């Protein structure tokens, strides 16, 4: 499939991009991209991380300026100079990361942006919100603090904000990454109602299935270029499977099946083996911003991969941190190879073979400004042979780091490069090398493929499978149900801080888990 087709400016286009190019130090983020956005259409931008989707959004929402090419609004070339300008042009954006002030109420957030000398027009807003929410069939708690809302509710507030400001074009950037399967379906239905009212929607995702399910038109981005477009006529003519395989062809160049749908190899776990990790009645007190844990119990045997499914923010992070020793527990026991470890510190647990691969790679997993080499040993500071009598042994550190870089295929300019300069996938490789290197017995993976591109996702999953195959016990926490179904032996569902059920990953596990996640019995 050759690159983009239509250059002709259509009168119906709200926004059109012509040959837009954007460069950053060392990268061409967008390379002469053409795009036409029409009212009444959900235009899906599909591409892996690094394909240039976010940069494209940045330019449409006024955060960045194109280096070459032009953006036309209503057929007129225009430079979108600031977010304010974008809003005035009727372009509303819902960013991947929530852009609401957590300490303000929903209403106050919606009022943000008025002239600073004015009093907020609360009554006017209330009337307007009532009108919009009625038409869309959603409810919004106007006077609740944003920090008290779930992520899905916050997203609705952001969409509402775009509507309150009379947006004609709504851009949704990776909006499903934090939602439940049910929430995703609801978002799809909401988008449908919005386009029926004549809105244009740009929906950015890297998930093929969502693109096929929600889109009217799909543009595929790859390494900054638009590599193909499926117009609505074709879209309607093809079935979902045919669309998926066409997209795969566009993205990967050759015909193959959905790469994520690899078959889970059947493995036999010695049922009689003593569990490596036993968690019994573990409880954690809730905090201001996080739920607690209530009597969590499970076992993992050697070679077993136990999945934790659930909507984000239901205690997954608390569970991982409590097991790793980062979070204080109220009661319960954790045994590693039969020995209780619940009283041990983070370092002591690690020494005994418990490893925790965090989902927050830059926030807590690494020190961004430190070199790659040191980041491999952040959890071993002071340990021989890298430190002797407390003194750093640079040669030893560099030797071992170089080894790990090769072994785990970390793409870095040098060992001295600050780790934050690496891509997400490569940072994840540093973490994998650090946690899996030696002496691991039980490994907790928290959202190990979140935000990674497909190639790195597949590579990470393979590492995790290999880990279990080596006879280690693996706890895999993920919000991606497909991921869990493709890898785990058993899947437990966490909801509001407790495990509401555990399902063997055979047969109709998917529907059982789905029922558990929305609060029904399996």
């Amino acid at each position, binding site marked *: 499939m050759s690159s983009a087709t239509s250059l002709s400016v259509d009168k119906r286009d709200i926004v059109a991009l012509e040959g837009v190019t954007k460069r950053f130090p060392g990268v061409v983020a967008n390379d002469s991209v053409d795009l036409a956005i029409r009212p009444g259409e959900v235009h899906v931008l599909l591409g892996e991380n690094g394909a240039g989707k976010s940069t494209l959004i940045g330019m449409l929402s006024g955060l960045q300026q194109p280096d070459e090419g032009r953006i036309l609004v209503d057929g007129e070339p225009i430079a979108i100079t600031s977010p304010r300008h974008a*809003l005035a042009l009727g372009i509303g954006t819902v960013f991947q990361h929530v852009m609401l*002030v*957590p*300490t*303000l109420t929903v209403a106050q957030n919606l*009022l943000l942006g008025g002239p*600073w000398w004015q009093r907020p027009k609360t009554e006017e807003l209330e009337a307007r919100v009532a009108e919009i929410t009625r038409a869309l069939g959603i409810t919004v708690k106007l006077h609740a603090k944003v920090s008290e809302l779930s992520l899905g509710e916050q997203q609705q507030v952001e969409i509402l*904000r775009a509507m309150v400001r009379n947006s004609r074009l709504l851009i949704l950037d990776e909006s499903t990454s934090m939602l439940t399967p049910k929430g995703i379906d609801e978002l799809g239905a909401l988008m449908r109602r919005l386009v029926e009212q004549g809105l244009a929607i740009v929906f950015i995702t890297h998930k093929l299935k969502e693109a096929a399910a929600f889109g009217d038109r799909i543009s595929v981005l790859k390494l900054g270029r638009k590599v193909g477009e499926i117009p609505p006529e074709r879209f309607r003519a093809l079935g979902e499977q045919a669309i998926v395989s066409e997209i795969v062809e566009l993205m990967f160049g050759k015909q193959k099946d959905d790469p994520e749908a690899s078959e889970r190899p059947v493995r036999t776990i010695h049922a009689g083996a003593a569990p490596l990790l036993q968690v019994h009645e573990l409880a954690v007190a809730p905090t201001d911003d996080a739920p607690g844990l209530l009597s969590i119990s499970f076992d993992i045997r050697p070679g077993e991969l136990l999945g934790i499914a659930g909507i984000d923010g239901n205690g997954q992070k608390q569970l991982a941190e409590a097991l790793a020793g980062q979070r204080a527990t109220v009661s319960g026991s954790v045994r590693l190879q039969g020995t209780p470890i619940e009283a041990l510190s983070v370092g002591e647990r690690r020494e005994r073979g418990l490893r925790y691969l965090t989902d927050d790679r830059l926030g807590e997993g690494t020190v961004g400004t430190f070199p790659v080499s040191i980041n491999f040993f952040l959890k071993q500071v002071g340990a021989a042979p890298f430190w002797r009598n407390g003194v750093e042994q640079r040669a030893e550190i560099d030797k071992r780091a170089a080894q790990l870089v090769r072994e785990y295929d970390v793409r870095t300019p040098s060992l001295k490069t600050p780790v934050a300069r690496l891509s997400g996938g490569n940072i994840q490789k540093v973490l994998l090398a650090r946690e899996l290197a030696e002496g691991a017995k039980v490994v907790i993976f928290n959202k190990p493929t979140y935000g990674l591109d497909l190639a790195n996702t597949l590579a990470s999953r393979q590492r995790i499978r290999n880990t279990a195959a080596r006879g280690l016990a693996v706890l895999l926490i993920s919000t991606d149900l497909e991921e869990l179904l493709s890898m785990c032996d058993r899947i437990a569902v966490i909801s509001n801080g407790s495990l509401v059920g555990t399902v063997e990953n055979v047969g109709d596990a998917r529907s059982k888990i789905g029922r558990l996640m929305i609060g029904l019995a399996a």
Partner: protein
Amino acid sequence: MTGLFSEVFLSALLFGAVTAAIPLLLAGLGEQMSEKAGVLNIGIEGMMLAGAYLGFVGAFYSGSLWLGFLTGAGGGIAVALVMALLCVRIGLNQIVIGIALTLGLEGLTALLHHFQFSRSYPRLPAVDVTVIPLLSGIPVIGLALFRQHLIVYLAVALVFAMGYIYRRTQLGLNLQAAGDKPAALDVAGIDVARTRTIAVLTTGALAGLGGAFLANVGAGLFIPFITNGAGFLGIVLAMLARGRPVWVLFGALLFGVCLSLTTAMQVAGINIPTDVIQMLPFLAVMIMLVLFGRRASLPAALGIPYERGVR
């Protein structure tokens, strides 16, 4: 002992407390606004000094106290402009620049004063007071609280004006967003840098006014380093008050009473080093922090320069 608790003594004590509290109040209110908008303004001591010097010079040469307040506020704004340019517009480290400004203004005002007045310390005439009818007749309190310069009443009124701005106006929302989640403000179409600049310049104006009050009303003259840590006290007050202007008022009065007590003790000839009493407010606050110290709820983005597109 009778002299110590006489009506005159108490009244003078209270009067002194109010006079000492006003500069702290203005500094604290100013710092509070910067902090709300996400700028940790360590340079406030320098802004006060600039205000004290220029305020004094303005009043001294014009003979008008009000013109002095104006030039004082202007001096504070001038320093704040540098701070806004360096820390808000181009995002330099707020603590580094704040300390640099404080040191620089300490030196500069001392230097200028030296070349202007050499070693003489000319005094301003005593200030006119605005007497509030009826209320000023109340024993003790009347003399202390209701026979003050007009600017004192204005400063107290400012506490409530600030409360209104924070709770009821668009500007209040913008300031809080700039401090808690600047990116959200940006995508809502409000310029974060402009919002923070407004806050920093307001801080400069209030700190400058506070400095001018200190020199012109409090002391009646300018001496180098006259603020003597009042700006830092303002920072302490703002951090302890956690965004509530009324708390700044209470805190400033507490410190004011202690400062006034030291003077009163000296006048009464009581033989305790003034240092003991100067320690009291800090001791009280430290004890409060030890007893009730919880995570001070500071704005999430405090001290972090905002750059569009960087998470």
